[in-house]
């Protein structure tokens, strides 16, 4: 074989190898560009929780927790910051009403002994978190 032919073959092999490497690398980049990663980035993670507002929907003025009374009735007085569905429940009675924003008051019957009164407030606005307060009122006639 001639010297020139050998050199040409060697150059051809080297050139071919260079082109092959180039093609492989380019293909890798192209594949990476095509494939979307599953792991979320930090920006999207912070937006996964809806912006639930912990608005103070409900304020109860009376009765206070642990209050002792000597009659079978108590007036529940409070304030709503938005029109809401108010559900008041005790072992004796249920009270359900949609109440407008502002002050409210209504009478609630009591049983002799301990009355665990659950006052829940539901807003139709999905952004506003529902609220609940539990108050224990004791009707003891031996005062």
């Amino acid at each position: 074989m001639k010297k020139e032919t050998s050199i040409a073959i060697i150059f051809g092999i080297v050139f071919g190898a260079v082109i092959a490497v180039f093609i492989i690398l380019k293909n890798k980049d192209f594949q990476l560009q095509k494939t979307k990663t599953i792991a979320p980035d930090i920006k999207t993670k912070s937006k996964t929780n809806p912006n639930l507002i912990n608005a103070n929907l409900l304020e109860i003025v009376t009765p206070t927790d642990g209050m002792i009374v000597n009659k079978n009735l108590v007036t529940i007085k409070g304030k709503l910051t938005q029109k809401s569905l108010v559900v008041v429940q005790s072992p004796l009675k249920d009270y359900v009403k949609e109440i407008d924003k502002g002050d409210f008051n209504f009478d609630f019957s009591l049983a002799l002994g301990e009355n665990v009164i659950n006052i829940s407030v539901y807003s139709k606005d999905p952004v506003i978190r529902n609220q609940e307060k539990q108050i224990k009122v004791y009707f003891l006639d031996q005062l």
Partner: protein
Amino acid sequence: MKKITLIVLLFLSLTTFGVNAQSPQASAGAKISPTATVDDKEIQLFKNKVATKVAELREKNNRAIAGFVVNSKDGLIHIKSSDATEYDVKTDDNLTQYFQINGSSKKEIKRDDIVKDDYVIISGILNDKTMDTNVLYRDEYFFVASGKITAVNNVDFSLSVVDSDKDNIILDVENSTNQYLLDVKTLQLSKIGFSKIKEGDTIQLVARRKDLRVPNKYTAIRYIVIPQEYFIK
């Protein structure tokens, strides 16, 4: 004779003057009583103020506590409330009265009728974690809560609920359970059957503990279901 008459007349006039002289002493004695009356009034006013203040303080510091009897011996009952706070209740054999609450009335019972796991209510002055009481009521414990229904078991007729404290509770529904559904349009409550309840509905419940040794399992007395449709605009 004239001299004697004059002396007698002088003597008589002097004694009359002496009698007159006594009247200023009587008026001096009359001036002392108004001062005593003023002092009495002030003392009485002070007593009334103190009594009112004591009554106000007593009313302010008068507390009621309730809990399950842990143990009971001699003049002391140890109780544990539903929030796991422990109290000592001091009773007196001669003074303390014991009652059983039956609906809207009460019936007197004996000290020995109060046993472990009874739910009792006491009122009095709370000193740290100790209370002296003259009256003790035995009552039934009710669990009142709200939450979301996470599972409906149509085989056992039970509901799995996550309450507002994020506790998982199992609610057994019995024939005697009063079940109500809120009508989303009229906001009226109507009686329903177990089949109307769906996962994801909101529930407000009143229940009693099945067994003190098994936490988070209750028998439903009454509940109101607020359907998910209420919250859809």
